[in-house]
Structure formats: C-alpha cells, structure tokens
C-alpha cells in the first residue's frame, strides 16, 4: 500500500486531522479566522489558484486532492508578509512549505512545477557537499527541463553569467569539486539520521 493510500485510509474524511499530524506547523490550520489578510498581502497572490486563506478553508472542508495537487503553495516566495500580518499569528509561510513538502512526499504535487523542481535541486546540491555549489546549481536549473531547453536558457542567461564571472561572483573552479564542509562523512551521517527520525515520525502518525 502506498503512503498516499495509507493516509487516505487512516484519515478518511478528516483531512484537517491528517494535516495536523503530518504537515509542518499543520496544527495551526484550525486557528485561521478567514480574514484574508494573508491572501491580500502575498506578493504573488494573483498567481495562486487558491490563496492561503482559501487553502485553509479547503483543508477544513476536506478537499484533500484539490489542496495537495495544487500549484498554489509553490508560489510562496518566503517573504513572510503573511506571517507578520496574520492577526492570529499563524506561521503561514511554514505551513505552505509544509504542505508543499507533504504533497511532494506523497507524489501528489504537480509534476513539472518549476519551484518544486528547483527546490529539490537546491536540496540535492547542498546535501552533497554541505554547502551550495552555485555554478552546478545554476547549470542543473537551466537543464531541468531537458537538454534542448537547457541550451536555450543557457544562451539567454549568457550575459548575466559573463557579468558574474567578470565581477568574480561566479567561478568555473566550482565545476571541479568546489566548496565543501570538511567533515563530510559526519555531515552525511547526521543528515541520514535526521531523515530516518523524520520518516519514523511520519510512519508512526500514518
């Protein structure tokens, strides 16, 4: 049974409980008073199919598929406007990140969502050496939708890249190894353990 099916079985008809148990800061969702300040404060608000206020209402209405397969949470720029303005102090930014992460984990996030892809590339990049390799991250970003589009994007970004190189704010040396933490083995063991504990928590709730 997939994790998704297991979760549907366990939380049948109660998506709010599922979110509370499994989504980062999800226990705050019930506190939303539907004022809409978050939606009005979001810099990318007009691009959300369902702005945060609506997402909270949909969770409580049990609209599981509509929420988890939504493109909306991936529009969060982490500007924290909603957090500082929310009259009931919901950590909205974190809830959106948590919902996005949970949706991706269950395999329900929209397949080609660009921020989802970039965010995963960012995580893979930093977990490899403990520090971000900007050159490799940039190249993987340009080529994340295949080779043909990658070449086009690279050409489009060529002038910016040359400017960065000239200002010594980009280095070709990063292509060969690049910056890293020294205790890489300890770093990897630490992350692996953190992931195991995180997985155990989700299984326990599931």
């Amino acid at each position, binding site marked *: 049974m997939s994790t998704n099916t297991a979760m549907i079985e366990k939380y049948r008809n109660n998506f709010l409980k599922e979110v509370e148990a499994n989504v980062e800061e999800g226990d705050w969702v019930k506190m939303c008073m539907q004022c809409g300040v978050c939606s009005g404060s979001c810099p*990318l608000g007009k691009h959300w199919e369902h702005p945060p206020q609506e997402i909270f209402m949909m969770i409580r209405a049990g609209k599981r598929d509509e929420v988890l397969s939504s493109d909306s949470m991936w*529009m969060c720029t982490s500007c924290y406007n909603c957090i*500082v303005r929310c009259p009931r102090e919901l950590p909205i930014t974190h809830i959106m990140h948590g919902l*996005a992460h949970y949706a991706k984990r269950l395999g329900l996030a929209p397949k080609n969502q660009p921020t989802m892809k970039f965010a995963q590339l960012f995580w893979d990049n*930093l977990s490899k050496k403990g520090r971000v390799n900007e050159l490799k991250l940039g190249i993987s970003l340009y080529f994340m939708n295949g080779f043909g589009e990658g070449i086009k994007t690279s050409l489009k970004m060529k002038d910016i890249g040359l400017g960065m190189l000239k200002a010594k704010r980009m280095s070709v040396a990063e292509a060969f190894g690049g910056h890293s933490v020294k205790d890489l083995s300890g*770093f990897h063991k630490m992350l692996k353990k953190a*992931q195991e504990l995180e997985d155990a928590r989700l299984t326990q709730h599931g």
Partner: protein
Amino acid sequence: MAKYEYSFYPGCSSQKGASSSNYLTSVETMCEELDIQLNHIPDWNCCSASIGYAGGGELPRLTLSARNIALSEEHNPGQEIVATCAACWLATREASERLGEDDELMAEANTALAEAGLKLKNETPIKHMAEVLVEEVGYDEIASKVKKPLEGIKIAGYVGCQTNRPFGIHGESYENPKYLDKLVDTLGAESIPDYEKKVQCCGGALAFSEPDKSQEMIKGILEAAYDNGADMVVTPCPVCQMNVEVYQDQINAKYGTKFKMPVVYYSTLMSVAFGRSSKDAALDGQIIRAKKLEEIAG
C-alpha cells in the same frame, strides 16, 4: 582585543567565487574600521535557506542550522552568532527558536548531531549584522568613523523581506523600517524615507524558477527608485542585491525600460564613507558600476 567580537557565519553565497563574495569583502572592511572581530564558525554548512523545503523535511532542515550553532558553541563559546545573509540569519534563528520550543524535536536534532560528534546546547543568541550596527555600535559611533561623507548621492534603502520579517530589527516596523535610511543619512548621503518599495519582495529564490513573475516585481522596485530620483539602491540582503542588479538587461528587453541602477550593500557604502579604497569596498564586484561611489573612493 577588538571592541566587538562575534561568532560569524558567512554563508554559501559569500564564499570565494560565489554570488555575494563582494558582500563579504566589504563587510570585512567595514568591520576593520568599526573594530568588530568576526570569528568564523569552523566548518559551517548551508542552512538550506527558505527553498530547501521540497527535499528537506522539518527535522533535516532544522538539523542543518543546529549543526552550525553547535559548532559555534563548541569553538566560539560565549559568543553571539552574527550572520550577514538574511536567509542564514532567518534559518538559524528560526531553528534555534523552534528547537527551543519543542523538546521532542530538540532531542531528535541532538540524536542526529551525535552522528557528527556534536551537541546543541542552544544557548546562543543569533543576530543579523544590521542589528549589530544599529543596536550595538549605533549611529553616533558609525558617524564618528566617516572620513568621506557620501555627499550628493541619493540612495533608495531597499530593506527587502527576510532582513525585515519575521524578526526584523528591534523597535522598527515591518511595514516601514527606517534604519537603513538613517544609516544612509549617517554616512552623509541623502535617504529616501518614503521609498514605497522598501519592503517589496523581489521574488527571492523564485527569481530562478519563476523568472517572469519575479522580474515583474523587480521592475517595480527599480521603477520606484528612479521615480524617487535615486542614484543607487542599497540593501542588506544578498538575494535582493543579486535579483535587483543582474536582471536589469532582461527586464529592459522585455518591458522597453532603460534601467541601469547600481545596487550596493550597506557595507559597500560604509567602506567608502570610512575612507577605504574601491577594492576594499568591493566596488569591482558591481555588475552595474556604482560610479558615484568610485569617484569618492578614488
């Protein structure tokens, strides 16, 4: 012994050959002049910023920052941590607060850290360099170090998001922070206190994944700077700096604008005002040259 001493976390983008390496150069110059000693946290790692969440769940992400705090507590005991990158500061302080509130998460983070031979006490305050300047050093002391006032330069103070929210600077408003304007005035330049885009989002990491949506916002930030008669924009954030500076040609091509607005760090301004060279102020790190600052620096 230095007048001020901190445990310092420069972050990925300030490394050699990285996108805000010029920020670190100017911060080091600024700190020399203000007698601030920065003791690097040995072997620090990435904090995963605010875009690591797709791949990294709550505990793995918090553990990343926990490792940095633990390393600081071990190697630079008793010293407050200071970060210059908004995302580093936010992620580290957020991790410290979240782990401080949740014993279960704290225990799990320490179980993970033990794999790397580390232990988090979580007793260390985490500050942004802007807090150090405003709250510890203060405007008067900064003013006393000014050798070359930045006279005749009008500067839009662009605070952005993550230096300002959710933590911000004590006593400043989220909606209309004034410390960057005060700093600009202290250095002898002319501030624009009613620069209406001072806390507008530039798109952050979404400048990479959603370039059109982000560039529309960046266009507004630049347009308002021009409308207010600014000669340049100053910011405390590496992502703001890069996003607002490097996409101007693409925005010009798309919207028919003619933007060519330098975007500098507060530390760039301070290094120049304190009488240091263009090189020490990292003016060679500008993609859009800040010529008025170059003239003063000589």
